[in-house]
């Protein structure tokens, strides 16, 4: 669990560093607004995410409602 805490701390320390990046204006966001560029799971991949959470011990971290359900099928 100590390693997890170290990893978490390293991870969150990245945030203020990254936050100093350049500002991109609205008219410069043509690429970023593309549907394929959206951050997050594709809706069509939701079933695969379910089965990954059953067939592997690891779940979550993708901003959903993880941790519930029996996964017993």
């Amino acid at each position: 669990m100590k390693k997890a805490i170290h990893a978490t701390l390293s991870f969150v320390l990245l945030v203020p560093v990254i936050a100093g990046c350049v500002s991109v204006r609205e008219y410069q966001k043509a690429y970023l607004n593309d549907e394929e560029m959206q951050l997050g799971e594709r809706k069509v991949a939701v079933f695969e995410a379910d089965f990954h959470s059953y067939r592997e011990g690891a779940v979550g971290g993708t901003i959903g409602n993880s941790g519930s359900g029996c996964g017993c099928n």
Partner: protein
Amino acid sequence: MRLQLIQLFSFLALSAFAQQPQPDSEVKNDSKVLDRTQVDFLFSYYHQEGNNSAVTGGKGTEKLTDVASTIIVNVPVRSTHSIQVEYGISYYTSASSDNINPYSISSASSDNLVHKLDITSSFKDTVNNSQRGFKVGATHQNNFGGIRIGGFYSKESEDRNREVKIQGSISLDKWALYYPISKLYPIELKGQGDLVDTDKRYSYNFSLAYKQILTTRLQMQLAGELIYQTGLLSTPFHRVYFTEQDAPKLEKLPSHKLRIPLTLRLNYFLLDRLIVRSLYRFYVDDFGVRAHSINIELPFKITNFFSLYPFYNFHTQTAANYFKGYKEHNLSEKYYTSDYDLSNLISYELGGGVYYAPVYNIATIKRRKKNRHAIAWKKLELRYAYYKRSTGLYANIVSTHFGFIF
């Protein structure tokens, strides 16, 4: 320590907003705000084969077929308020669960339906660039069910280059909703009294995500989650066999579990027609599972509205401290499982998809009433994946997504 961790994470993430806002006089792009009801239909077919079923103690068929469909209806009540209703139903047949018919001691085939319903109400504050909402949901299947409630809050920076999202939820689940949990025990263990301390499982979930635009072609998201579970975390029909005896015992696991996944997403518009979508996840829990997962997806835009994408997932994990295979456990152990989902394993998934969403719709259906919008078929997505695990389990999954606007 957990509280300190949450406070530190929150402070550092929110500190990004303490910077001076960038002057930005451009009109904000509100094109993502829905002004019509959006309806998504999702379907999937999944089939797996393997030979390490936990129901039969880590030895025996894991053959399983699951057909699932979900409908998501997003209704904009006002320009700043929307309600989303998501209902999913899946039907699975599982060879390994043939022995867990609670009303029978015979090995009748067991067919199962799973229902899931989630209702989310979201409010947008366009002045503060923030959004908040709450969610209620329920899951029901023949041997498990529960309810969940949750809420979220997100805030974008003035220039819309950064966003923080905080989300929390509580799930209250129960095994065997309509009969005593002892009905779910393996046949040979029925009639031995109470083998578990509780039939309830509670999950508490807190997540924090930070999104940042890095360049005109690159954006990222850091996310962390704390999941704390308590109650019956083992499965009341999983057998475990021991070296000292032939008779099995019921799987036994600790009644508390803390899980921490951390993810980093990076999406990069590499060339004019090629995008790189990537995800790395580190996961650790206090059962001893430590995992790394990588996902890479390469959408290639044939036209602006039509893209093809191959993708690849790689996952590796260490075994839970309580895992051993068939007849490898000792009777002196306090906790034990032969569930290969908690074993030391490597898995990969390879697949591809097609995404089509033309500006002027795939098809439209005009309505009789003149003042009503036509029903527009906006999106079509097809996806196939092959999954292989180092334990020998393999699976195929086909999924589709049809998006409409009413």
